[in-house]
């Protein structure tokens, strides 16, 4: 039994190495001089040559970083504001049409961007919003808002209404009770949904390809642009350095919210 358990343990470790290998390969290649990646035999250990990073860290990276940050922040803030009030409404009040609203919020999440981007492109083109922060930000807000509503609703549900009612018996108005008692308790929920929205918008590729021009690229498009030269000419250490820079903040944030992501994706969102 013991040797068998050990054998399974060894298999698990081997699988872990295989699965993490592409990630290791990015980092390893990022720290190689370009000659090393063009030699007949690969180098398996990083050389700690940061030349790739300095080649890739140029104006176009900074421009794309700014664009990605602007669009992402715009979408997160807009989604948080809209989503927060909607979450309060469906969690704290019962009203006609509440169920249809919830159903819509859930169903909209299932619509793939591929099923709408043609007419979204058409619409933005008509409004002169193609290749603009506002246009892309609008689509991203619509993309992350349903999940934000659903997630925040779970957090509002988790805060007992008794707390508010107690404050109201003490003479607070309902609104005041909400903002002094419940709102501070919602901070973790706002952070979690913000992180989720960040990951979505930061990594988004499909809509960015459709809406943005090659002159005005978000980070994923910028990263892909680095490989858009003839195969022989790709500067792989620089591409891998770019991939490292794009992925690092994402991986850190992801690790923080991972637990919620697992349960959230299965139940439509997080409950309490």
């Amino acid at each position, binding site marked *: 039994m013991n040797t068998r*358990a050990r054998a*399974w*343990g060894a298999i*698990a*470790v081997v699988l*872990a190495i295989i*699965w*993490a290998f*592409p990630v290791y390969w*990015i980092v390893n290649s990022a720290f190689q001089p370009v000659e090393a990646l063009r030699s007949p035999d*690969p180098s398996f250990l990083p050389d700690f040559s940061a030349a790739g990073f300095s080649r890739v860290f140029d104006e176009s990276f900074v421009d794309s970083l700014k664009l990605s940050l602007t669009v992402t922040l715009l979408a997160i803030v*807009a989604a948080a504001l809209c989503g927060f*009030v*909607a979450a309060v*409404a469906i969690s704290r*009040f019962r*009203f006609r049409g509440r*169920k249809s*609203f*919830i159903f*819509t919020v859930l*169903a*909209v999440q299932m*619509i*793939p961007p*591929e*099923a*709408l*981007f*043609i*007419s*979204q*492109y*058409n619409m933005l*083109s008509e409004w002169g919003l193609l290749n603009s922060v506002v246009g892309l930000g*609008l*689509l991203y807000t*619509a993309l992350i*808002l349903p999940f934000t509503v659903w997630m925040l609703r779970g957090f509002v549900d988790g805060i007992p209404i008794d707390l508010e009612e107690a404050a109201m018996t003490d003479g607070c108005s309902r609104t005041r009770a909400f903002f002094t008692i419940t709102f501070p308790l919602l901070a973790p929920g706002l952070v979690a949904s913000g992180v989720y929205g960040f990951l979505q918008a*930061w990594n988004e*590729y*499909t809509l960015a*390809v459709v809406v943005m021009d090659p002159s005005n690229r978000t980070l*994923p*498009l910028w*990263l892909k642009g680095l*490989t858009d030269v003839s195969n022989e000419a*790709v500067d*792989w250490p620089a*591409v891998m350095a770019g*991939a490292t820079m*794009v*992925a690092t903040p*994402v*991986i850190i944030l*992801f690790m923080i919210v*991972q637990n919620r992501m*697992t349960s959230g*994706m*299965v139940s439509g969102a997080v409950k309490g």
Partner: protein
Amino acid sequence: MSSTRLTHRAGTYGLLVPTILVLVVGMAYPLGRQLILSFQEFGRAQQFGQPAPFIGLDNYRELVTDRTMWAVISRSLAFCAVCASITMVLGTAFAVLMKAVSTVPRLTLQISMLLAWAMPVIAAMTAWQWLFDTRYGLVNWLLTKVGLSDFDDHNWLIEPLSFFFVAGVIVIWMSVPFVAFTAYAALSQVSEETLEASHLDGATAIQRFRHIIYPTIRPILTIVALLQIVWDLRVFAQINFLQNAGGTPSETHLLGTYIYSLGIGQNDYGAASAMAMFVLALTLVLTFRYVRSLLKEESR
């Protein structure tokens, strides 16, 4: 009293307005437009302001009789079926493995899965493109090293089947972690006592999986499989990226990239809209029951 209640109710609806506004402008309005567009002839001339004539079901008829579109649909369904089933099997197997081993190997596997899961899709794509690179890629080097000299300077993306093999490896690599973590969480609900009792009664590992473990985790696995199918039908980023990296677009289009090339590539917005409506309908049919079950849970 009744008047305060009325303002109260109006206030409640007011809270929904921003969300509804965003969803209408960002999704419902384009959706309505798309529906209309799919019954119109809308090409380059219409892009420049000419009126778009209604042509009834012509766009749909054109699609149904078009060989290319059937090729794209069957390719997409096949790709989705293969990727989703391999992902489900591997993910569940990984979850069972995580459950069976001691803490150190389990944590190692979990951290590695998390890394793969967290990778932004385009960063992951560049890594795989580099691994499968014709001249200097590690995969060709490794295969040549073990004696398969055919793979010296082998181009993985030029043949459609080999293209989809690479795409499939990437899609599966990215999706297994989600299945593994979810199935692992579900496995924690399996009763240890029942398992122990069945062990004492002489049940084999396979019997225990079939009769005790599987029935407990089945509801979660069903949902995960459904999400997996929906996600693997829409692999725009991966296919688009690999096509740019050297694939032959006309032979490797799946639903998403085909709609893109029809509409934004060839300016045939009418036909592209009709195709998009088909993808939308397919997704809604697939997910309708899941969304309804979420809603039911909600009213409980």
